[in-house]
Protein backbone atom coordinates (compact mmCIF):
# COMPACT_ATOMS: atom_id res chain seq x y z
CA UNK A 1 0.00 0.00 0.00
CA UNK A 2 1.29 3.43 -0.87
CA UNK A 3 -0.15 6.53 0.75
CA UNK A 4 2.14 8.89 -1.13
CA UNK A 5 0.78 11.17 -3.81
CA UNK A 6 2.68 11.45 -7.05
CA UNK A 7 4.49 14.64 -7.96
CA UNK A 8 1.77 15.29 -10.53
CA UNK A 9 -1.06 14.81 -8.07
CA UNK A 10 0.59 17.26 -5.70
CA UNK A 11 1.03 19.75 -8.53
CA UNK A 12 -2.68 19.52 -9.37
CA UNK A 13 -3.60 19.97 -5.71
CA UNK A 14 -1.40 23.08 -5.53
CA UNK A 15 -2.83 24.45 -8.78
CA UNK A 16 -6.37 24.09 -7.41
CA UNK A 17 -5.33 25.68 -4.12
CA UNK A 18 -3.66 28.62 -5.88
CA UNK A 19 -6.70 29.13 -8.09
CA UNK A 20 -9.06 29.01 -5.12
CA UNK A 21 -7.05 31.34 -2.93
CA UNK A 22 -6.05 33.82 -5.62
CA UNK A 23 -9.20 33.99 -7.67
CA UNK A 24 -12.17 32.63 -5.76
CA UNK A 25 -11.58 33.84 -2.22
CA UNK A 26 -11.71 37.57 -2.92
CA UNK A 27 -15.45 38.06 -3.35
CA UNK A 28 -16.86 34.70 -2.35
CA UNK A 29 -18.99 36.23 0.42
CA UNK A 30 -20.48 38.81 -1.95
CA UNK A 31 -21.17 36.18 -4.60
CA UNK A 32 -22.95 34.06 -2.02
CA UNK A 33 -24.95 37.07 -0.80
CA UNK A 34 -25.96 38.11 -4.29
CA UNK A 35 -26.34 34.53 -5.54
CA UNK A 36 -24.27 35.17 -8.64
CA UNK A 37 -21.37 33.35 -10.23
CA UNK A 38 -18.56 35.13 -12.01
CA UNK A 39 -18.18 34.32 -15.70
CA UNK A 40 -14.45 35.00 -15.46
CA UNK A 41 -14.06 32.32 -12.81
CA UNK A 42 -15.71 29.74 -15.00
CA UNK A 43 -13.57 30.81 -17.95
CA UNK A 44 -10.41 30.48 -15.83
CA UNK A 45 -11.57 27.11 -14.50
CA UNK A 46 -11.98 25.99 -18.11
CA UNK A 47 -8.60 27.37 -19.19
CA UNK A 48 -6.89 25.53 -16.37
CA UNK A 49 -8.60 22.35 -17.57
CA UNK A 50 -10.53 21.69 -14.36
CA UNK A 51 -13.82 21.17 -16.21
CA UNK A 52 -12.61 18.18 -18.20
CA UNK A 53 -9.73 17.06 -16.06
CA UNK A 54 -10.45 13.32 -16.12
CA UNK A 55 -11.55 13.01 -19.73
CA UNK A 56 -9.21 11.12 -22.06
CA UNK A 57 -6.85 13.49 -23.92
CA UNK A 58 -8.09 12.02 -27.20
CA UNK A 59 -11.38 13.78 -26.42
CA UNK A 60 -9.50 16.95 -25.43
CA UNK A 61 -9.55 16.29 -21.70
CA UNK A 62 -6.76 16.50 -19.15
CA UNK A 63 -6.37 12.74 -18.71
CA UNK A 64 -5.90 12.97 -14.94
CA UNK A 65 -6.89 10.25 -12.49
CA UNK A 66 -9.72 10.32 -9.98
CA UNK A 67 -7.31 10.77 -7.07
CA UNK A 68 -6.16 14.07 -8.61
CA UNK A 69 -9.79 15.03 -9.07
CA UNK A 70 -10.51 14.43 -5.37
CA UNK A 71 -7.52 16.59 -4.40
CA UNK A 72 -8.60 19.40 -6.72
CA UNK A 73 -12.24 19.22 -5.60
CA UNK A 74 -11.21 19.41 -1.95
CA UNK A 75 -9.07 22.51 -2.48
CA UNK A 76 -11.68 24.40 -4.49
CA UNK A 77 -14.47 23.42 -2.08
CA UNK A 78 -12.52 24.79 0.86
CA UNK A 79 -13.17 28.21 -0.63
CA UNK A 80 -16.20 28.09 -2.91
CA UNK A 81 -18.58 25.13 -3.13
CA UNK A 82 -20.77 26.95 -5.67
CA UNK A 83 -17.89 26.63 -8.11
CA UNK A 84 -16.93 23.11 -7.12
CA UNK A 85 -20.45 21.77 -7.68
CA UNK A 86 -20.28 23.12 -11.24
CA UNK A 87 -16.96 21.36 -11.61
CA UNK A 88 -18.32 18.13 -10.15
CA UNK A 89 -21.35 18.03 -12.47
CA UNK A 90 -19.17 18.67 -15.53
CA UNK A 91 -16.51 16.11 -14.64
CA UNK A 92 -18.18 13.23 -12.88
CA UNK A 93 -21.63 13.28 -14.38
CA UNK A 94 -21.72 14.83 -17.83
CA UNK A 95 -18.22 14.19 -19.21
CA UNK A 96 -17.79 10.82 -17.57
CA UNK A 97 -21.23 9.68 -18.72
CA UNK A 98 -20.53 10.71 -22.30
CA UNK A 99 -17.01 9.31 -22.37
CA UNK A 100 -18.13 5.90 -21.13
CA UNK A 101 -21.49 5.45 -22.83
CA UNK A 102 -21.87 7.81 -25.79
CA UNK A 103 -20.94 6.77 -29.33
CA UNK A 104 -18.01 8.26 -31.27
CA UNK A 105 -20.20 10.68 -33.17
CA UNK A 106 -21.70 12.00 -29.94
CA UNK A 107 -18.31 12.23 -28.28
CA UNK A 108 -16.87 14.17 -31.18
CA UNK A 109 -19.77 16.57 -31.25
CA UNK A 110 -20.56 17.01 -27.57
CA UNK A 111 -17.81 15.63 -25.34
CA UNK A 112 -14.88 17.49 -26.91
CA UNK A 113 -16.17 21.05 -26.36
CA UNK A 114 -17.25 20.03 -22.86
CA UNK A 115 -13.86 18.54 -22.02
CA UNK A 116 -12.15 21.69 -23.27
CA UNK A 117 -14.46 23.65 -20.99
CA UNK A 118 -15.78 25.72 -23.88
CA UNK A 119 -19.22 24.42 -23.10
CA UNK A 120 -20.83 23.58 -19.79
CA UNK A 121 -22.97 20.53 -19.15
CA UNK A 122 -25.92 19.79 -16.87
CA UNK A 123 -27.35 16.49 -15.66
CA UNK A 124 -31.15 16.40 -15.57
CA UNK A 125 -32.44 13.59 -13.39
CA UNK A 126 -34.29 15.01 -10.35
CA UNK A 127 -37.97 15.76 -10.70
CA UNK A 128 -40.53 17.46 -8.47
CA UNK A 129 -41.93 14.05 -7.56
CA UNK A 130 -38.76 12.03 -7.92
CA UNK A 131 -35.68 13.25 -6.13
CA UNK A 132 -33.22 10.51 -5.49
CA UNK A 133 -35.64 7.82 -6.72
CA UNK A 134 -34.60 7.51 -10.33
CA UNK A 135 -37.09 4.72 -11.06
CA UNK A 136 -40.15 6.94 -11.05
CA UNK A 137 -39.36 9.36 -13.86
CA UNK A 138 -42.36 11.39 -15.00
CA UNK A 139 -40.64 13.28 -17.78
CA UNK A 140 -41.50 11.46 -20.99
CA UNK A 141 -39.51 11.04 -24.19
CA UNK A 142 -42.01 9.64 -26.58
CA UNK A 143 -40.66 7.76 -29.61
CA UNK A 144 -42.16 9.55 -32.63
CA UNK A 145 -40.28 7.56 -35.27
CA UNK A 146 -37.97 10.35 -36.52
CA UNK A 147 -37.46 11.97 -33.16
CA UNK A 148 -38.27 11.85 -29.44
CA UNK A 149 -40.86 14.22 -28.02
CA UNK A 150 -40.12 15.48 -24.50
CA UNK A 151 -42.64 16.65 -21.94
CA UNK A 152 -42.20 17.17 -18.21
CA UNK A 153 -40.26 19.07 -15.56
CA UNK A 154 -36.82 18.57 -14.04
CA UNK A 155 -35.93 20.12 -10.69
CA UNK A 156 -32.82 21.39 -8.84
CA UNK A 157 -30.75 21.39 -11.99
CA UNK A 158 -27.21 22.63 -11.40
CA UNK A 159 -25.77 24.68 -14.31
CA UNK A 160 -29.24 24.80 -15.92
CA UNK A 161 -28.75 28.32 -17.23
CA UNK A 162 -24.99 28.21 -17.93
CA UNK A 163 -25.01 24.86 -19.68
CA UNK A 164 -25.44 24.37 -23.38
CA UNK A 165 -25.47 20.58 -23.25
CA UNK A 166 -28.04 18.74 -21.16
CA UNK A 167 -27.97 15.06 -20.32
CA UNK A 168 -31.63 14.25 -19.71
CA UNK A 169 -33.04 11.10 -18.16
CA UNK A 170 -36.62 10.47 -19.34
CA UNK A 171 -39.22 7.73 -19.60
CA UNK A 172 -39.82 6.33 -23.09
CA UNK A 173 -41.90 3.27 -22.15
CA UNK A 174 -43.80 4.05 -18.91
CA UNK A 175 -45.19 0.50 -18.70
CA UNK A 176 -41.67 -0.94 -18.63
CA UNK A 177 -40.90 1.11 -15.49
CA UNK A 178 -37.17 1.69 -15.03
CA UNK A 179 -36.36 -0.54 -17.99
CA UNK A 180 -38.16 1.94 -20.22
CA UNK A 181 -35.93 4.86 -19.21
CA UNK A 182 -33.49 6.46 -21.67
CA UNK A 183 -30.70 9.01 -21.43
CA UNK A 184 -30.40 11.73 -24.05
CA UNK A 185 -28.14 14.56 -25.07
CA UNK A 186 -30.29 17.65 -25.50
CA UNK A 187 -29.16 21.05 -26.73
CA UNK A 188 -30.39 23.63 -24.27
CA UNK A 189 -31.56 25.99 -26.99
CA UNK A 190 -33.98 23.43 -28.48
CA UNK A 191 -37.43 25.06 -28.84
CA UNK A 192 -39.82 24.18 -26.03
CA UNK A 193 -37.28 24.27 -23.18
CA UNK A 194 -37.89 26.94 -20.53
CA UNK A 195 -36.20 27.60 -17.21
CA UNK A 196 -37.70 28.45 -13.88
CA UNK A 197 -36.18 31.26 -11.78
CA UNK A 198 -32.79 30.93 -10.07
CA UNK A 199 -33.49 29.00 -6.86
CA UNK A 200 -33.07 31.09 -3.73
CA UNK A 201 -31.11 28.56 -1.70
CA UNK A 202 -29.80 28.35 1.85
CA UNK A 203 -26.26 27.57 0.75
CA UNK A 204 -24.23 27.33 -2.48
CA UNK A 205 -26.34 30.31 -3.30
CA UNK A 206 -24.23 31.33 -6.27
CA UNK A 207 -24.59 27.95 -7.90
CA UNK A 208 -26.79 28.15 -10.98
CA UNK A 209 -29.85 26.09 -9.96
CA UNK A 210 -33.16 26.13 -11.82
CA UNK A 211 -36.05 23.90 -12.73
CA UNK A 212 -36.24 23.04 -16.43
CA UNK A 213 -39.54 22.59 -18.26
CA UNK A 214 -39.93 20.53 -21.45
CA UNK A 215 -42.97 21.33 -23.55
CA UNK A 216 -43.13 19.30 -26.78
CA UNK A 217 -39.38 19.37 -27.22
CA UNK A 218 -38.16 17.47 -30.28
CA UNK A 219 -34.84 15.66 -29.83
CA UNK A 220 -33.13 13.84 -32.73
CA UNK A 221 -33.01 10.07 -32.40
CA UNK A 222 -29.23 10.11 -32.78
CA UNK A 223 -29.06 11.87 -29.41
CA UNK A 224 -30.10 8.84 -27.38
CA UNK A 225 -27.21 7.40 -25.38
CA UNK A 226 -26.72 3.64 -25.70
CA UNK A 227 -29.32 0.98 -26.46
CA UNK A 228 -33.03 1.63 -26.10
CA UNK A 229 -33.86 1.36 -22.39
CA UNK A 230 -30.28 1.93 -21.18
CA UNK A 231 -31.15 5.15 -19.31
CA UNK A 232 -31.58 3.74 -15.82
CA UNK A 233 -28.27 1.88 -15.90
CA UNK A 234 -26.67 5.00 -17.36
CA UNK A 235 -27.99 7.11 -14.49
CA UNK A 236 -26.95 4.64 -11.80
CA UNK A 237 -23.44 4.12 -13.14
CA UNK A 238 -22.91 7.83 -13.59
CA UNK A 239 -24.17 8.61 -10.11
CA UNK A 240 -21.74 6.06 -8.63
CA UNK A 241 -18.90 8.29 -9.84
CA UNK A 242 -20.74 11.52 -9.12
CA UNK A 243 -20.78 10.59 -5.46
CA UNK A 244 -16.97 10.78 -5.37
CA UNK A 245 -17.22 14.36 -6.58
CA UNK A 246 -19.76 15.39 -3.95
CA UNK A 247 -17.92 13.42 -1.25
CA UNK A 248 -14.73 15.33 -1.98
CA UNK A 249 -16.70 18.56 -2.08
CA UNK A 250 -18.06 17.82 1.41
CA UNK A 251 -14.53 16.93 2.50
CA UNK A 252 -13.29 20.30 1.23
CA UNK A 253 -16.07 22.18 3.01
CA UNK A 254 -15.12 20.36 6.22
CA UNK A 255 -11.38 20.89 5.88
CA UNK A 256 -11.85 24.52 4.86
CA UNK A 257 -13.87 25.15 8.03
CA UNK A 258 -11.37 23.17 10.10
CA UNK A 259 -8.39 25.17 8.82
CA UNK A 260 -10.15 28.42 9.62
CA UNK A 261 -11.13 27.21 13.09
CA UNK A 262 -7.60 26.01 13.82
CA UNK A 263 -6.10 29.32 12.73
CA UNK A 264 -8.64 31.26 14.72
CA UNK A 265 -8.03 29.16 17.84
CA UNK A 266 -4.35 30.06 17.73
CA UNK A 267 -4.96 33.79 17.33
CA UNK A 268 -7.99 34.47 19.47
CA UNK A 269 -7.33 34.87 23.17
CA UNK A 270 -9.71 34.26 26.05
CA UNK A 271 -8.92 34.07 29.76
CA UNK A 272 -5.38 35.19 29.03
CA UNK A 273 -4.38 32.58 26.51
CA UNK A 274 -5.04 31.48 22.95
CA UNK A 275 -8.29 29.52 22.96
CA UNK A 276 -6.46 26.52 21.47
CA UNK A 277 -4.89 26.14 24.90
CA UNK A 278 -8.30 25.45 26.38
CA UNK A 279 -8.86 21.72 26.29
CA UNK A 280 -12.52 22.08 25.31
CA UNK A 281 -11.41 23.77 22.09
CA UNK A 282 -8.34 21.60 21.47
CA UNK A 283 -10.39 18.40 21.79
CA UNK A 284 -13.02 19.73 19.42
CA UNK A 285 -10.27 20.35 16.89
CA UNK A 286 -8.82 16.93 17.54
CA UNK A 287 -12.21 15.30 16.84
CA UNK A 288 -12.59 17.38 13.70
CA UNK A 289 -9.14 16.36 12.49
CA UNK A 290 -9.90 12.64 12.92
CA UNK A 291 -13.19 12.94 11.07
CA UNK A 292 -11.55 14.79 8.20
CA UNK A 293 -8.75 12.24 7.99
CA UNK A 294 -11.33 9.44 7.80
CA UNK A 295 -13.35 11.31 5.23
CA UNK A 296 -10.31 11.96 3.06
CA UNK A 297 -9.29 8.31 3.22
CA UNK A 298 -12.77 7.19 2.16
CA UNK A 299 -12.73 9.59 -0.79
CA UNK A 300 -9.29 8.53 -1.89
CA UNK A 301 -10.11 4.83 -1.49
CA UNK A 302 -13.18 5.21 -3.71
CA UNK A 303 -11.14 7.21 -6.23
CA UNK A 304 -8.36 4.65 -6.17
CA UNK A 305 -10.79 1.78 -6.78
CA UNK A 306 -12.25 3.70 -9.72
CA UNK A 307 -8.78 4.34 -11.12
CA UNK A 308 -7.95 0.63 -10.78
CA UNK A 309 -11.20 -0.24 -12.62
CA UNK A 310 -12.44 -2.10 -9.56
CA UNK A 311 -16.04 -1.87 -8.29
CA UNK A 312 -16.46 1.38 -6.38
CA UNK A 313 -20.24 1.87 -6.01
CA UNK A 314 -20.33 0.97 -2.31
CA UNK A 315 -17.09 2.77 -1.56
CA UNK A 316 -18.37 5.94 -3.18
CA UNK A 317 -21.66 5.70 -1.27
CA UNK A 318 -19.73 5.32 1.99
CA UNK A 319 -17.55 8.30 1.10
CA UNK A 320 -20.52 10.45 0.12
CA UNK A 321 -22.54 9.67 3.24
CA UNK A 322 -19.66 9.99 5.68
CA UNK A 323 -18.09 13.10 4.16
CA UNK A 324 -21.44 14.90 3.97
CA UNK A 325 -22.37 14.01 7.54
CA UNK A 326 -19.02 15.00 9.02
CA UNK A 327 -19.00 18.17 6.93
CA UNK A 328 -22.15 19.18 8.77
CA UNK A 329 -20.62 18.28 12.14
CA UNK A 330 -17.26 19.88 11.49
CA UNK A 331 -18.65 23.12 10.08
CA UNK A 332 -21.06 23.41 13.02
CA UNK A 333 -18.14 23.03 15.45
CA UNK A 334 -16.09 25.51 13.44
CA UNK A 335 -18.84 28.08 13.92
CA UNK A 336 -18.92 27.22 17.63
CA UNK A 337 -15.15 27.72 17.99
CA UNK A 338 -15.46 31.11 16.32
CA UNK A 339 -18.24 32.08 18.73
CA UNK A 340 -20.02 35.28 17.72
CA UNK A 341 -17.53 35.85 14.90
CA UNK A 342 -18.53 32.51 13.43
CA UNK A 343 -22.12 33.68 13.17
CA UNK A 344 -21.25 36.66 10.99
CA UNK A 345 -20.37 36.31 7.32
CA UNK A 346 -16.86 37.81 7.41
CA UNK A 347 -15.34 34.66 8.89
CA UNK A 348 -16.66 32.28 6.18
CA UNK A 349 -17.54 29.41 8.53
CA UNK A 350 -21.27 30.13 8.63
CA UNK A 351 -21.30 29.94 4.83
CA UNK A 352 -19.41 26.66 4.88
CA UNK A 353 -21.97 25.34 7.38
CA UNK A 354 -24.83 26.28 5.04
CA UNK A 355 -22.99 24.66 2.14
CA UNK A 356 -22.37 21.47 4.12
CA UNK A 357 -26.08 20.94 4.54
CA UNK A 358 -26.60 20.55 0.81
CA UNK A 359 -24.03 17.79 0.53
CA UNK A 360 -26.24 15.64 2.79
CA UNK A 361 -29.14 16.18 0.42
CA UNK A 362 -28.18 16.28 -3.24
CA UNK A 363 -26.93 13.50 -5.50
CA UNK A 364 -28.58 11.03 -3.13
CA UNK A 365 -29.35 11.98 0.47
CA UNK A 366 -27.35 10.44 3.30
CA UNK A 367 -30.33 8.12 3.82
CA UNK A 368 -30.23 6.94 0.22
CA UNK A 369 -26.50 6.28 0.59
CA UNK A 370 -27.30 4.12 3.59
CA UNK A 371 -29.75 2.14 1.45
CA UNK A 372 -26.98 1.51 -1.08
CA UNK A 373 -24.48 0.58 1.61
CA UNK A 374 -26.84 -1.67 3.54
CA UNK A 375 -27.94 -3.51 0.37
CA UNK A 376 -24.31 -4.17 -0.43
CA UNK A 377 -23.92 -5.86 2.95
CA UNK A 378 -26.27 -8.64 1.88
CA UNK A 379 -24.39 -9.49 -1.30
Amino acid at each position, binding site marked *: MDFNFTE*EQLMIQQAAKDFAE*RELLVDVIERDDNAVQSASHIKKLAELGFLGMMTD*PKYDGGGMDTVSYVLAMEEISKVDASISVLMSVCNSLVNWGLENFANEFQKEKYLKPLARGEKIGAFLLSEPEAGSDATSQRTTAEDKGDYYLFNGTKNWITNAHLASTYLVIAQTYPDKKHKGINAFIVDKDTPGITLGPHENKMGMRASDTHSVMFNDVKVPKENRIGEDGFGFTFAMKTLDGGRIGIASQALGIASGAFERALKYSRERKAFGTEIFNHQSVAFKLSDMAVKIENARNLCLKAAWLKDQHLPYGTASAMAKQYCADIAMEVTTEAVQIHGGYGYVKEYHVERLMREAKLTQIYEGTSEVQKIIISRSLLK
Partner: protein
Amino acid sequence: MKILVCINNVPDTTTKIKFVDNKAFDSAGVQWIINPWDELTLTRAIEMKETQPADIESVTVINVGRADAEASIRKALAIGADNGIRINSDTSDSYSVAFQLSEYIAKEKYDIIFCGIESSDYNGGSVGGMLAEFLAIPSVSSVSMFEIKDGKVVVKREIDGGNETLSVQTPFVLIGQKGIAIEPKIPSMRGIMTARTKQLTVVEGVACNQLIEFVDFDLPKAKAACRKIDAENVKELIDLLHNEAKVI
Protein backbone atom coordinates in the same frame (compact mmCIF):
# COMPACT_ATOMS: atom_id res chain seq x y z
CA MET B 1 15.47 34.17 -29.22
CA LYS B 2 16.31 31.45 -26.78
CA ILE B 3 15.54 32.20 -23.16
CA LEU B 4 17.04 30.45 -20.17
CA VAL B 5 15.33 30.90 -16.81
CA CYS B 6 17.28 30.11 -13.64
CA ILE B 7 15.03 28.81 -10.90
CA ASN B 8 15.85 28.11 -7.31
CA ASN B 9 14.04 25.57 -5.16
CA VAL B 10 13.14 27.14 -1.80
CA PRO B 11 10.99 26.31 1.23
CA ASP B 12 7.39 27.47 0.94
CA THR B 13 7.21 31.07 2.14
CA THR B 14 4.91 30.12 5.02
CA THR B 15 7.38 27.54 6.37
CA LYS B 16 8.28 27.79 10.03
CA ILE B 17 12.05 28.14 9.91
CA LYS B 18 14.10 25.76 12.09
CA PHE B 19 17.74 24.70 12.13
CA VAL B 20 19.53 21.49 13.03
CA ASP B 21 21.94 22.38 15.87
CA ASN B 22 21.98 25.93 14.46
CA LYS B 23 24.24 24.63 11.69
CA ALA B 24 21.90 23.87 8.81
CA PHE B 25 18.33 24.50 7.75
CA ASP B 26 16.00 21.78 9.02
CA SER B 27 14.17 20.61 5.92
CA ALA B 28 12.05 17.95 7.65
CA GLY B 29 8.44 18.19 6.48
CA VAL B 30 9.14 21.26 4.37
CA GLN B 31 7.21 21.88 1.20
CA TRP B 32 9.41 23.17 -1.60
CA ILE B 33 8.42 25.70 -4.19
CA ILE B 34 9.96 27.66 -7.05
CA ASN B 35 11.48 30.82 -5.57
CA PRO B 36 8.67 33.42 -5.94
CA TRP B 37 10.83 35.96 -7.86
CA ASP B 38 12.08 33.27 -10.22
CA GLU B 39 8.53 32.10 -10.76
CA LEU B 40 7.43 35.62 -11.72
CA THR B 41 10.22 36.02 -14.26
CA LEU B 42 9.51 32.52 -15.58
CA THR B 43 5.86 33.49 -15.97
CA ARG B 44 6.85 36.51 -18.04
CA ALA B 45 9.13 34.45 -20.27
CA ILE B 46 6.32 32.01 -20.94
CA GLU B 47 3.75 34.76 -21.53
CA MET B 48 6.11 36.19 -24.16
CA LYS B 49 6.49 32.85 -25.85
CA GLU B 50 2.73 32.38 -25.92
CA THR B 51 1.91 35.87 -27.18
CA GLN B 52 4.93 36.43 -29.47
CA PRO B 53 5.97 32.97 -30.65
CA ALA B 54 7.81 34.51 -33.59
CA ASP B 55 10.22 36.23 -31.20
CA ILE B 56 10.81 33.42 -28.71
CA GLU B 57 12.16 30.16 -29.99
CA SER B 58 12.30 28.36 -26.66
CA VAL B 59 12.21 28.76 -22.90
CA THR B 60 14.52 26.47 -20.92
CA VAL B 61 14.63 26.28 -17.13
CA ILE B 62 17.76 25.47 -15.19
CA ASN B 63 18.34 24.70 -11.53
CA VAL B 64 21.46 24.04 -9.52
CA GLY B 65 20.37 21.59 -6.89
CA ARG B 66 19.72 18.10 -5.66
CA ALA B 67 17.28 15.61 -7.14
CA ASP B 68 14.48 16.82 -4.86
CA ALA B 69 14.43 20.07 -6.84
CA GLU B 70 13.06 18.22 -9.84
CA ALA B 71 9.46 18.71 -8.68
CA SER B 72 10.00 22.45 -9.09
CA ILE B 73 11.56 21.96 -12.52
CA ARG B 74 8.62 19.86 -13.59
CA LYS B 75 6.24 22.51 -12.36
CA ALA B 76 8.10 25.00 -14.56
CA LEU B 77 7.65 22.60 -17.47
CA ALA B 78 3.93 22.31 -16.63
CA ILE B 79 3.65 26.09 -16.63
CA GLY B 80 5.05 26.08 -20.17
CA ALA B 81 8.84 25.87 -20.27
CA ASP B 82 10.06 23.69 -23.14
CA ASN B 83 12.75 21.74 -21.34
CA GLY B 84 14.61 21.61 -18.07
CA ILE B 85 18.15 21.17 -16.86
CA ARG B 86 19.34 20.32 -13.39
CA ILE B 87 22.97 20.80 -12.50
CA ASN B 88 23.53 18.21 -9.81
CA SER B 89 25.07 19.99 -6.84
CA ASP B 90 24.16 20.82 -3.28
CA THR B 91 25.93 24.12 -3.01
CA SER B 92 23.90 27.00 -1.64
CA ASP B 93 26.16 30.05 -1.83
CA SER B 94 25.49 32.42 -4.69
CA TYR B 95 29.04 32.45 -6.05
CA SER B 96 29.20 28.68 -6.54
CA VAL B 97 25.70 28.57 -8.00
CA ALA B 98 26.52 31.33 -10.48
CA PHE B 99 29.78 29.60 -11.37
CA GLN B 100 28.00 26.28 -12.04
CA LEU B 101 25.47 28.05 -14.22
CA SER B 102 28.12 29.94 -16.15
CA GLU B 103 30.09 26.78 -16.87
CA TYR B 104 27.00 25.22 -18.42
CA ILE B 105 25.78 28.32 -20.25
CA ALA B 106 29.22 28.98 -21.78
CA LYS B 107 28.78 25.75 -23.76
CA GLU B 108 25.26 26.57 -24.92
CA LYS B 109 23.89 29.70 -26.47
CA TYR B 110 21.07 31.64 -24.91
CA ASP B 111 20.01 35.15 -25.84
CA ILE B 112 18.51 36.18 -22.55
CA ILE B 113 19.10 34.62 -19.18
CA PHE B 114 16.38 35.33 -16.64
CA CYS B 115 17.00 35.34 -12.89
CA GLY B 116 14.83 36.46 -10.01
CA ILE B 117 16.17 39.36 -7.97
CA GLU B 118 16.58 37.35 -4.80
CA SER B 119 15.95 33.95 -3.26
CA SER B 120 13.56 33.74 -0.35
CA ASP B 121 15.90 31.37 1.54
CA TYR B 122 19.37 32.86 1.91
CA ASN B 123 18.44 36.24 0.43
CA GLY B 124 21.77 36.66 -1.33
CA GLY B 125 20.29 38.47 -4.31
CA SER B 126 23.46 38.04 -6.26
CA VAL B 127 23.32 35.04 -8.61
CA GLY B 128 22.15 37.06 -11.62
CA GLY B 129 24.85 39.72 -11.38
CA MET B 130 27.58 37.17 -10.69
CA LEU B 131 26.47 35.05 -13.61
CA ALA B 132 26.61 38.04 -15.96
CA GLU B 133 30.13 38.87 -14.84
CA PHE B 134 31.28 35.26 -15.24
CA LEU B 135 29.87 35.34 -18.77
CA ALA B 136 31.14 38.89 -19.36
CA ILE B 137 27.78 40.06 -20.68
CA PRO B 138 25.53 42.97 -19.60
CA SER B 139 23.03 42.63 -16.79
CA VAL B 140 19.97 44.69 -16.03
CA SER B 141 18.60 44.26 -12.56
CA SER B 142 15.37 45.22 -10.78
CA VAL B 143 13.50 44.68 -14.05
CA SER B 144 9.77 45.28 -13.73
CA MET B 145 8.83 45.08 -17.42
CA PHE B 146 10.14 43.01 -20.32
CA GLU B 147 9.02 43.33 -23.90
CA ILE B 148 10.25 42.57 -27.38
CA LYS B 149 9.33 45.24 -29.93
CA ASP B 150 10.33 44.79 -33.57
CA GLY B 151 12.85 42.18 -32.52
CA LYS B 152 14.45 44.50 -29.94
CA VAL B 153 14.48 43.91 -26.22
CA VAL B 154 12.98 46.68 -24.13
CA VAL B 155 13.04 46.53 -20.34
CA LYS B 156 12.01 48.80 -17.54
CA ARG B 157 14.10 48.76 -14.40
CA GLU B 158 13.31 50.21 -11.01
CA ILE B 159 15.78 52.74 -9.70
CA ASP B 160 15.67 54.17 -6.21
CA GLY B 161 12.97 56.74 -6.82
CA GLY B 162 11.61 55.98 -10.24
CA ASN B 163 12.25 53.79 -13.23
CA GLU B 164 14.15 53.75 -16.50
CA THR B 165 13.28 52.20 -19.82
CA LEU B 166 16.22 50.70 -21.68
CA SER B 167 16.89 48.86 -24.87
CA VAL B 168 19.43 46.09 -24.39
CA GLN B 169 21.51 44.08 -26.84
CA THR B 170 21.46 40.32 -26.40
CA PRO B 171 22.92 38.28 -24.90
CA PHE B 172 22.33 39.65 -21.43
CA VAL B 173 21.14 38.67 -17.98
CA LEU B 174 17.73 39.96 -16.96
CA ILE B 175 17.18 40.13 -13.22
CA GLY B 176 13.45 40.37 -12.64
CA GLN B 177 11.40 41.59 -9.75
CA LYS B 178 7.82 42.37 -8.84
CA GLY B 179 5.92 43.85 -11.75
CA ILE B 180 7.56 41.80 -14.50
CA ALA B 181 4.45 39.61 -14.34
CA ILE B 182 1.26 40.21 -12.38
CA GLU B 183 1.31 36.87 -10.60
CA PRO B 184 2.82 33.45 -11.16
CA LYS B 185 1.10 31.28 -13.72
CA ILE B 186 -0.93 28.34 -12.45
CA PRO B 187 -0.22 25.19 -14.47
CA SER B 188 -3.18 23.85 -16.43
CA MET B 189 -4.13 20.17 -16.62
CA ARG B 190 -2.97 20.16 -20.23
CA GLY B 191 0.32 21.72 -19.18
CA ILE B 192 0.83 19.15 -16.43
CA MET B 193 0.07 16.40 -18.92
CA THR B 194 2.45 17.66 -21.59
CA ALA B 195 5.20 18.14 -19.00
CA ARG B 196 5.38 14.34 -18.78
CA THR B 197 7.03 14.15 -22.17
CA LYS B 198 9.31 17.19 -21.88
CA GLN B 199 12.99 16.61 -21.41
CA LEU B 200 14.69 17.08 -18.05
CA THR B 201 18.43 16.71 -18.41
CA VAL B 202 20.74 16.21 -15.45
CA VAL B 203 24.36 17.33 -15.73
CA GLU B 204 27.03 16.98 -13.07
CA GLY B 205 28.19 20.06 -11.24
CA VAL B 206 31.79 21.28 -11.29
CA ALA B 207 34.03 22.04 -8.34
CA CYS B 208 34.19 25.64 -7.18
CA ASN B 209 36.10 27.46 -4.46
CA GLN B 210 33.78 28.76 -1.83
CA LEU B 211 34.55 32.33 -0.86
CA ILE B 212 32.10 32.40 2.00
CA GLU B 213 30.75 29.86 4.45
CA PHE B 214 27.70 29.82 6.67
CA VAL B 215 29.02 29.57 10.22
CA ASP B 216 25.72 29.21 12.04
CA PHE B 217 22.12 30.33 12.16
CA ASP B 218 19.84 31.60 14.85
CA LEU B 219 16.26 32.69 15.24
CA PRO B 220 15.15 36.18 16.26
CA LYS B 221 14.60 36.58 19.97
CA ALA B 222 11.02 36.86 21.07
CA LYS B 223 9.93 40.41 20.60
CA ALA B 224 8.77 42.47 23.53
CA ALA B 225 4.99 42.59 23.63
CA CYS B 226 3.32 45.37 21.73
CA ARG B 227 2.59 48.33 23.94
CA LYS B 228 -1.07 49.19 23.55
CA ILE B 229 -2.15 52.79 23.60
CA ASP B 230 -5.70 53.85 24.29
CA ALA B 231 -7.47 55.02 21.11
CA GLU B 232 -8.79 57.97 23.11
CA ASN B 233 -5.28 59.11 23.95
CA VAL B 234 -3.24 59.11 20.74
CA LYS B 235 -1.07 61.91 22.15
CA GLU B 236 0.65 59.25 24.22
CA LEU B 237 1.85 57.60 21.01
CA ILE B 238 3.45 60.81 19.80
CA ASP B 239 5.09 61.17 23.20
CA LEU B 240 6.50 57.62 23.08
CA LEU B 241 7.73 57.97 19.52
CA HIS B 242 9.50 61.18 20.45
CA ASN B 243 10.88 60.41 23.90
CA GLU B 244 11.22 56.63 24.04
CA ALA B 245 11.83 55.49 20.45
CA LYS B 246 13.32 58.83 19.44
CA VAL B 247 12.18 58.40 15.84
CA ILE B 248 10.25 61.65 15.48
